[in-house]
C-alpha cells in the first residue's frame, strides 16, 4: 500500500549530537504503526524530527509524496500532519474548547470549526461536559483525550502520537486505544511511539524497534511481539548483546 507518510534515513538530535541515526519508517492510510524501544532509544526525538521540532541532520520526510523536511512545523500541520507530544500536550491556561480552537488554527470558517468541534465532542463526550474547564485542571485521561482532540481538529491525514498511554490507568488507556481504532477507521494513518508494547502492538499492523537511536528490527506486529528476542529489546534488556 502506498504510504501517506514516510521518513527515510533520518538522523536527528539536539545541538551537534545525533540521537537518532539512519532510521526509515512509513505508514499507510488507515494503518496503525508502532515505534517501540527502551527508554532513551530516541523514539520521541524521531517523532519530533518529522515535524522539524528537533534538528534534522540528514534524511527526508515525505507527506503524500511531498518532501516536507524543510517546511516549518505549523505548515506541516496545515498540510495534514498531526502531532501529540508525550508531555505538555495541552495549553493549561486555555479551557477545553479554546484548546480545540487552537488545534483548528489554520481551518477557515466558523461553521467548519464548529462542525469539527462537534465531531471531537461526539468522540470524547467527557470533554463536552467540561468544555469550559481549564485544561490544566483535567485528569490524565481527560488531558490525553483533549490532546488527541486538539490534533484531530486540524483534520490530519497522519497522526503522530508520542506515548499516548503513558501514566494512564487501565480504564482511560483502553478508552484511548478504542478511540485510536476509531480514528484509524476514518482513514487516518497513525504512528505511535509507546512503551506499553503489548497494548500498542495489539492495535498496530506493523512495528519498528528502536535501540540506541537505530532501528534494529521491523515487521508485522504479531511477529514482532511473538519473537522473544524482540520482546527483550522492547523492554530494554540485553541491549548490549544486541548492539554488539
Amino acid at each position: 500500500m502506498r504510504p501517506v507518510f514516510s521518513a527515510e534515513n533520518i538522523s536527528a538530535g539536539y545541538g551537534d549530537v545525533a540521537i537518532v541515526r539512519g532510521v526509515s519508517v512509513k505508514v499507510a492510510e488507515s494503518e496503525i504503526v508502532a515505534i517501540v524501544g527502551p527508554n532513551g532509544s530516541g523514539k520521541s526525538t524521531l517523532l519530533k524530527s518529522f515535524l522539524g521540532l528537533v534538528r534534522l541532520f540528514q534524511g527526508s520526510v515525505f507527506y503524500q509524496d511531498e518532501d516536507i523536511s524543510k517546511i516549518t512545523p505549523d505548515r506541516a500541520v496545515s498540510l495534514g500532519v498531526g502531532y501529540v507530544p508525550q508531555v505538555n500536550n495541552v495549553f493549561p491556561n486555555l479551557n477545553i474548547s479554546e484548546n480545540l480552537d487552537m488545534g483548528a488554527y489554520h481551518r477557515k470558517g466558523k461553521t467548519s470549526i464548529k462542525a469539527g468541534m462537534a465531531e471531537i465532542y461526539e468522540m470524547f463526550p467527557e470533554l463536552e461536559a467540561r468544555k469550559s474547564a481549564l485544561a490544566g485542571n483535567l485528569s490524565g485521561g481527560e488531558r490525553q483525550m483533549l490532546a488527541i482532540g486538539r490534533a484531530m481538529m486540524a483534520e490530519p491525514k497522519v497522526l503522530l502520537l508520542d506515548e499516548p498511554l503513558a501514566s494512564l490507568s487501565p480504564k482511560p488507556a483502553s478508552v484511548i486505544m478504542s478511540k485510536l481504532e476509531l480514528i484509524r477507521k476514518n482513514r487516518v494513518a497513525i504512528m505511535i511511539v509507546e512503551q506499553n508494547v503489548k497494548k500498542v502492538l495489539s492495535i498496530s499492523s506493523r512495528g519498528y524497534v528502536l535501540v540506541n537511536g537505530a532501528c534494529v528490527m521491523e515487521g508485522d506486529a504479531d511477529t514482532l511481539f511473538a519473537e522473544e528476542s524482540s520482546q527483550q529489546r522492547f523492554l530494554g534488556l540485553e541491549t548490549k548483546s544486541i548492539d554488539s
Partner: protein
Amino acid sequence: MTINWAQVLFNSVVTGSFYLIGAVGITLTYGLSNFPNFAHAELITSGAFIGYMVAEQLGLGIPVALVISFLCTGIVGLLCYRCIFQPLAKKGATIIHLMVASIALGFILRHSIGAVWSWEPLYFTSTWRAFTVGPLRVTWLWLGLIFAALSLATAMHFVLVKTKIGKAIRATSSNPELALASGINIDKVIWVTWFIGAGLAGIAGIFRGADTQIWPMTGWDAILPIFAVAVLGGIGNFYGAIAAAFIIGLAENIGVVGLTILGLSTTYRIGIAFLILIITLIVRPQGLAMLFRRT
C-alpha cells in the same frame, strides 16, 4: 495634618492606570519572547515625543496624537524585534544576551531622541484645568488616562478571550512548541504582540509627557515601577498586570502620604516599587499568576 483619603485613592487609580498601559507591552512580550525588554522605556519616550510632535508641532491635538503615536511606536517596537531580538534569539542568544541587547538598544534610542529633538524638557501647551468633584481634585487628563486604561483592559480582555489571535497569544505564551505543533505561526503571533505592546507604550508616553514633562529620560524614569507591575502580576499574565498596576499605584500613593508625614522627600516614592519588586521576587516569584490563570 488632615489626609484626604479619597484623593489618595483617586491618585492611586490614576497612577495605576498609567502603569497598566505601560506594563501590558512588557508583560506580553516578556511572556512570548522570554526576556525583559528594557528598551520598552524608550518606546514610552518615543511615544511621548511623537505625540508632542503631532499634537503641538503639527497642531493636530491629543486624540490624533494618541492614534499616530500608537501606530508609529508599534512599528518601531516591531522593527526592534524583527531586526535585533529575533535574529539574536535564532542564533541561540540567552535571556542575558537579549536583556543586555535591549539595554544597549534603549541607550542608543534614548540618545538618538535627545540628538534629534532635545535634552531640554518639553511641555504640552494644553492646560489641564483642575476642577473639584466632591472631595476630589481632578483634571480631564487624569480622567482620560483612567478611561484609556479601562478601555485597554476591556479591549485586551476581548482580544485575548474572544479572538483567534488573542487565544494564540495565550497559547504561544504558555507553550510555544505545542503552539507550533497546533499549526500556529508563532512568529506572526509574536510580531502582533510586539506591535501592540510597543504601541501601548507610546500611548503611555503621551499621558506621562502630558502630565509631567517630555525629555529623553521620560520612559526610563517610569520603567522600574512598570517592571514591578509585570513581575508582581506574573510575567505574561495580563489579568495579573491589571491587579498589580493598581496595587503598586495604591502602595506608591499611600507611601507618599507616609513620606510626607515623616517629613521626607516624596521623590523616594520610587523606592516603594523597588521594595515591592524585591519582596515579590523573594516571597512569590510567580507573582499573582496563580490567581489569574487564564493568561
